[in-house]
């Protein structure tokens, strides 16, 4: 009798363990690459209110901010607490990215498209390794390291929550190997009630459309007609990069530029092409020595984000290259634009 009771108790306990594991932890993907794929889509499925810290270490000045995040499927809101950001709120809703500026009561609405297949490109170009297990904010997590197969490229370290696959901490290392951005959660409240109004532009605010619609697909011919010159593609691209698309972009003076974007899964390179004699020249600060008819700028590190910018002039066209690549690589791309 006692043996039977013991057996029944053990069976019940085993069933309880299985039931608990089924509700708390999803099946853990076998390979680091699959774990990364699960992490990539995890935040889209989750509902949470959380606090995270983000810091950008740049050439000019580092910026850090505590951010209150509210997320539910299809929507996310980031409220930046740092005084330097003056109450900035970013909202993502579907493909729309909205920037709320409380000082001006203005909502700048842009569009960020989602391209399928780029994650596969990442897995093709980068290796993903599970470096170690390391708990973070009291949760079991695995550290995944993403490195390009070629040297001199950016890398990422991610702390992936074992239970939900949410990325709890991100470290981005630029192509020079320096820690460029760092973002990590400090506390998370799971499944809170989140009002829909959190993800809307407040009543009475001015809405401003930002830039051109990046979801519109252009080919080289149609884009060339739009910008009134023949758009040129670089003959050289660093290993692993592929054309993401042709885009139309109007700078603030209204002049149309061709925007050619190349991606390798984790990194991107933009090539902007436009007439060198833009009527908007001189609207910014400074006299712009070295622009216009001159040979263009030297390669420069970006002030507020990882990466470099290179400006070249060829005839009456100006080429602006932006990407997180070594200077030699950006120069090679620029030199190959004929």
């Amino acid at each position, binding site marked *: 009798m006692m043996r039977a009771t013991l057996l029944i108790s053990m069976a019940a306990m085993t069933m309880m363990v299985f039931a608990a594991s089924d509700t708390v932890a999803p099946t853990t993907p076998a390979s680091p690459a699959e774990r990364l794929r699960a992490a990539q889509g995890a935040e889209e499925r989750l509902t949470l209110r959380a606090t995270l810290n983000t810091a*950008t270490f740049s050439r000019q000045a580092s910026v850090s901010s505590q951010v209150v995040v509210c997320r539910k499927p299809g929507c996310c809101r980031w409220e930046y607490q740092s005084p330097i950001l003056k109450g900035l709120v*970013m909202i993502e809703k579907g493909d729309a990215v909205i920037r709320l500026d409380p000082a001006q009561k203005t909502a700048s609405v842009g569009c960020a498209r989602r391209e399928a297949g*780029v994650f596969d490109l*990442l897995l093709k170009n980068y290796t993903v390794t599970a470096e170690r297990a390391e708990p973070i904010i009291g949760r079991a997590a695995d550290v995944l390291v993403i490195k390009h197969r070629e040297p001199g490229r950016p890398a990422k370290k991610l702390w992936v929550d074992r239970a939900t696959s949410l990325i709890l901490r991100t470290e981005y290392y630029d192509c020079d190997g320096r820690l460029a951005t760092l973002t990590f959660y400090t506390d998370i409240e799971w499944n809170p009630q989140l009002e829909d109004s959190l993800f809307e532009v407040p009543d009475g605010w001015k809405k401003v459309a930002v830039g051109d619609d990046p979801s519109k697909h252009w080919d080289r011919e149609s884009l060339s007609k739009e910008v009134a010159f023949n758009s040129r593609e670089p003959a050289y691209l660093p290993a692993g990069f592929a054309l993401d698309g042709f885009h139309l972009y109007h*700078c*603030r003076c209204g002049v149309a530029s061709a925007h050619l974007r190349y991606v390798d*899964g*984790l990194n991107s390179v933009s090539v902007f092409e436009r007439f060198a004699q833009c009527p908007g020249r001189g609207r910014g600060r400074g006299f712009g020595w*070295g622009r216009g008819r001159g040979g263009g700028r030297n390669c420069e590190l970006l002030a507020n984000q990882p990466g470099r910018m290179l400006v070249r002039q060829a005839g009456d066209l100006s080429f602006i290259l932006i990407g997180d690549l070594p200077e030699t690589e950006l120069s090679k791309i620029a030199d190959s634009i004929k």
Partner: protein
Amino acid sequence: MKSCKDIQSQLADFAVGALREQEIAEIGRHLQECPVCQRELGALRRTGSLLDATEPEDAPADLWQSIRRDIEAPKPGPARVPWWEALFPARWPRLAYAGLAATAVVAVALVMTFSRLSPAGDDETQDFILRHGMLAWNDPLSDKAALGVMLGRSEVGREMQ
């Protein structure tokens, strides 16, 4: 009781009998006791005698016409000084001019050099950097909290549409 100074200020009128009786009496009393004011009165009277002795001369017949012509005639403006002479008076040494010119050249060169070396201060290229960042929003594993800092620090949206 008036002082010598007050009395002497009235002596010219006293000498020609242009004062009231009360004032004449007061000054008379003072003169009886004050040799200084007596001397002053004597000097005034001598000067008056000399003036009385001179023959008055008639004014020229066209005096008022000539005065009127002078009044109504257009006045020539002040001599026009070139701006460079006004800015740099001739009394400055040449070395000072050379120093000013050299300082101006160096200042302009510095301003233009720094305007070239400062990409963050260039709104024009900043727009392209923002566009580059915006299109990275939905890249795999993008750190949107960090991207938001970059987009949020910009002026994007206010001038572009």
